């Protein structure tokens, strides 16, 4: 039968899963771009390092005979801490000295950092795909729908939703969030009213890296394997999503990610899976040509 409702729902949920992960990564892109107008090319690598750290912790703890739910929480916590630390250090080394330099320099530095981190993991670990143990337990109450939705997907949707709510709260209602918004509007003015701009930028990198790491751990245990290269393509796609939604806008990043996730999922499900990545890139080209400010972004004109 051509029109299969179960198949449609399956694709819809797969798209939602993808979209959620893209959203977790895209948030970091959008926040960093909002504050220092830099495409943090190495952001995908932070996501990959998060997944790898989780894998390593899991491996060690499994051998010590811990139970899987405890491992999940400890591995996720360690991965978050390390990703945040990497994000923080990355900014200090590669971007901070270039804050007053032309944007091209910072972008090249970011590409260099991405290349460096990828090869660092490749050399220190392995180039092979490593199986990632399924840490998320199967839920009993999900059994009737098991053929359509997996419990790891449910965990992904709900975690993403919680992260979104927390992040919105952080930005809208806390002092740090207020400082972030101020810095993104006008860095010098923010400095004049007594905001420690360097600290705000560091916090932004830490928050962005943490959400990326959450995405890394979740997708790794959902798909079940990782290697050093997963960060690059995921990073690019999350960037596409962030641009689609309007870079710099947080609800935009989420919306863009979901749209990209669904279109990719339906495209591969109904048309062809060979050109999946081509499709994402074409999507990007078309958005940038026809609506560079994205769905929710404001268009701004260049001023002298």
């Amino acid at each position, binding site marked *: 039968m051509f029109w299969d409702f179960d198949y449609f729902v399956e694709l819809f949920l797969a798209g939602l899963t993808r979209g959620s992960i893209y959203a977790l990564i895209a948030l970091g892109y959008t926040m960093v771009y909002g504050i220092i107008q830099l495409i943090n090319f190495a952001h995908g690598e932070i996501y990959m390092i998060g997944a790898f750290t989780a894998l390593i912790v899991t491996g060690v703890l499994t051998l010590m005979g811990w139970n899987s739910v405890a491992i999940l929480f400890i591995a996720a916590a360690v991965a978050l801490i390390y990703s945040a630390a990497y994000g923080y250090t990355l900014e200090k080394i590669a971007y901070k000295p270039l804050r007053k330099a032309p944007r*091209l320099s910072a972008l090249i530095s970011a590409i260099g950092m991405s290349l460096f981190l990828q090869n660092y993991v490749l050399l220190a670990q392995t180039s092979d795909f490593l199986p990632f143990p399924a840490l998320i337990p199967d839920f009993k109450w999900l059994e009737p729908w098991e053929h359509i939705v997996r419990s790891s997907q449910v965990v992904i949707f709900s975690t993403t939703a919680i992260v979104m709510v927390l992040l919105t709260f952080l930005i809208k209602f806390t002092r740090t969030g207020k400082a972030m918004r101020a810095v993104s509007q006008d860095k010098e003015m923010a400095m004049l009213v007594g905001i420690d701009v360097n600290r705000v930028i560091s916090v932004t990198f830490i928050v962005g890296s943490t959400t990326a790491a959450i995405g890394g751990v979740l997708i790794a245990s959902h798909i079940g394997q990782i290697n050093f290269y997963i960060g690059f393509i995921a990073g690019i796609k999350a960037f596409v999503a962030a641009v689609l939604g309007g870079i710099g806008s947080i609800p935009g990043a989420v919306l863009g990610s979901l749209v990209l996730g669904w279109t990719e999922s339906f495209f591969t499900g109904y048309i062809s899976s060979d050109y999946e990545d081509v499709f994402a*890139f074409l999507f990007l080209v078309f958005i940038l*040509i026809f609506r560079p400010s994205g769905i929710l972004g404001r268009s701004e004109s260049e001023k002298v």
Partner: protein
Amino acid sequence: MINLAEIKKSFLISLWFVFLTFPIMVIRVNTIYDRVEWRWENMLFVGVGSFFFSFIWRYLLRRKELGSKNSQAEETQDRMTLNQRIMGDRRIYLPLLAAILVFAAAYPFVFSMYQTNIMINALIYIMLGLGINIVVGLAGLLDLGYVAFYAVGAYTYALLNYHFGLGFWLALPMGAAMGALFGILLGYPVLRLRGDYLAIVTLGFGEIIRLVLENWNQFSFGPSGIANIPRPSLPGIKMNLEQSTIFIYFLMIVLVIFTIFVVNRLKDSRIGRAWIALREDEVACQAMGIDRTKTKLTAFALGATWAGMAGVLFAAKTTFINPASFTIWESINILCIVVLGGMGSIVGVIFGALVLILLPEYLRAFSEYRMLLFGFILVTMMVFRPGGIISEVRRTYKFKGLNE
């Protein structure tokens, strides 16, 4: 200069890096066999390495800050770099040029075939570097999909030869033309984007070309590529492998000299100055009546032309091509050449290509660290010396007698 506070600072930094690299450097988990490998010795390397490296880092940062202050203070004083002094004096640079030419001419006869092959490779990269230099160095447009035009050139030759038996000499201009055509096709819609968006779109375009070549089996024979591409030849002369390698070598030398000549002339032409003006300030440039789209488009098309030509040569040299040679990392490789050598500077690009292509060949032991090194170079060059090793000589006009 090295006092207790500095040592303490470096010590803390090294502790931080030991912590940071702990899981990835020390532990290696094999999830298939459930085995864990602990490599404690790496911890020591990281600690000691980052301890000393942090000194160097801070020293370089301080020197850079000092340098920028000095140059602000002594704007009027003309400080000649080594490069400027050599290029400015005919008595030095003419003999130097002659020596380089003699060396280049003697190279394939003095060294082995293997060495000549490596040199041909380096020469192809010089050509690519000079081509991307037009786009990135002169016009200031970051192109991360440059390798796509290289692929277009290579596939133009391979496919025309496969289907129509077209020879190398006809394919060379056609590859260049196809490169330019694709440059215009891509450039036209995307060039109104700002710098960093442009970088991502060109990256996307590069990947699209590669993925299409990989998946469209009827057209490009997919991942298995095209083999048995003929080497270049002269009519009526049969060449064995060694002779044809030497022939390609000299062909490359001639083409590189041609490229240097053209790029050098372009740089000082009306359009070249428009590129540089556009790089410095787009808005001011438009206000002076320079057509932004047209100027950018010519830069893109001309850059792509060289890539197309280099692609034909690459196909002719290796006699086999497949999409795996044209990944995004190749683009970044070429970008790295320009960044290391000096954006906009011809001598710099040649230097960068020779260092980055020849060095990994001779330091085989380090070849797996090559990409790591490239990443490191990109970051450190941008932080400490954004102009590159041999930076471009800026054209300056001085009014004599103004300060006297």
